[in-house]
């Protein structure tokens, strides 16, 4: 039995053979008893494999899936809450120096205006005095 004939035999179950390949296989089958035995065994094997396919998981599978999904959504909610808390901490930590800077800036602005006002308040009477003379 040659390898080519075996290959054609196995391929014939799952793919379309060309006309010449089909002829070649039929000739090989009629010439070789071993190939015919192998074909019978292949038929039996394929049937047995198909029969061995599981039809379901253990009883209660759908309930186990539902519970797993429910546990996962609970975990997902906890994880989200944790992430939000963590984000808030970062925002709060970043906000503190910003607030400090704003306070200082605001103080500087207010301070500068007060000095300017004070200068104006003092300058005017002095200027008036100087301009009017004794």
């Amino acid at each position, binding site marked *: 039995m040659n390898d080519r004939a*075996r*290959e054609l035999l*196995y*391929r014939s*179950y*799952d*793919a379309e053979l060309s006309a010449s390949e089909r002829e070649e296989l039929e000739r090989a089958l009629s010439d070789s008893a071993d190939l015919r*035995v*192998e074909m*019978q*065994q*292949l038929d*039996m*094997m*394929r049937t*047995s*494999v*198909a*029969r*061995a*396919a*599981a*039809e*379901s*998981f*253990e009883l209660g*599978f*759908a309930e*186990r*899936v*539902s519970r*797993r*999904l429910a546990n*996962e959504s609970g975990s997902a909610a906890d994880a989200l809450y944790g992430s939000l808390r963590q984000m808030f901490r970062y925002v709060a930590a970043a906000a503190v120096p910003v607030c400090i800077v704003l306070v200082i800036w605001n103080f500087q602005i207010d301070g500068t205006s007060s000095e300017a006002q004070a200068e104006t308040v003092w300058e005017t009477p002095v200027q008036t005095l100087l301009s009017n003379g004794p």
Partner: protein
Amino acid sequence: MQTQADVSLATRVADFESEWSGRPEQELVDTARRGDEQAFREIVRRLEGRVAATVIGMLGPGPEADDVGQEVFVRLYRALPKFRGDSTLASYVTRIAINLCRNEWQRRKRRSNIFVRDESDQSDNVPGPAGDADSLPERDLIRRALLQLAAEYREVIVLRLMDGFSTREAAGILDVPEGTVTSRLARGQMKLRAILEPMLKEAS
């Protein structure tokens, strides 16, 4: 003796099944996407057999297969918003199952590399002579023989012979050319036949 509560529960289960069992697949998917638990339960009910055939065919029976099976449906639930209907739901969920089985197989290989196997442990060997084969049901022999194949051969045999996908569908699920599936099927079946020869000779 059935109590009134048993009868009531059975009636409710039957009502649920009759309400959802006739719905078209796309309607179920659309409803499940909106968070409807009943619709997703019906999807699980319809696809459990197909997923079991794939996962147990790839990994053998047991709690690990059950765990992987559950994870398949959890992943499907998360992926429903992205499911566009380009393939059937069966193909889509089978692709998820194959990927998770590959991960589980890799995990088993890593675990078996860590622990030195006991020389007397013959549990992964398929019985050789026909006398040993008599002691196991045919289904168990087939499943154990499949586990002896390389993953690439096992996948195509499970998809084609156990799941009943066509060669073209199997190629789509595995994302390989059809020719690749055909040649893997041929080689895989040759190897499988060699492993099962004692059983096949006895049967014939």
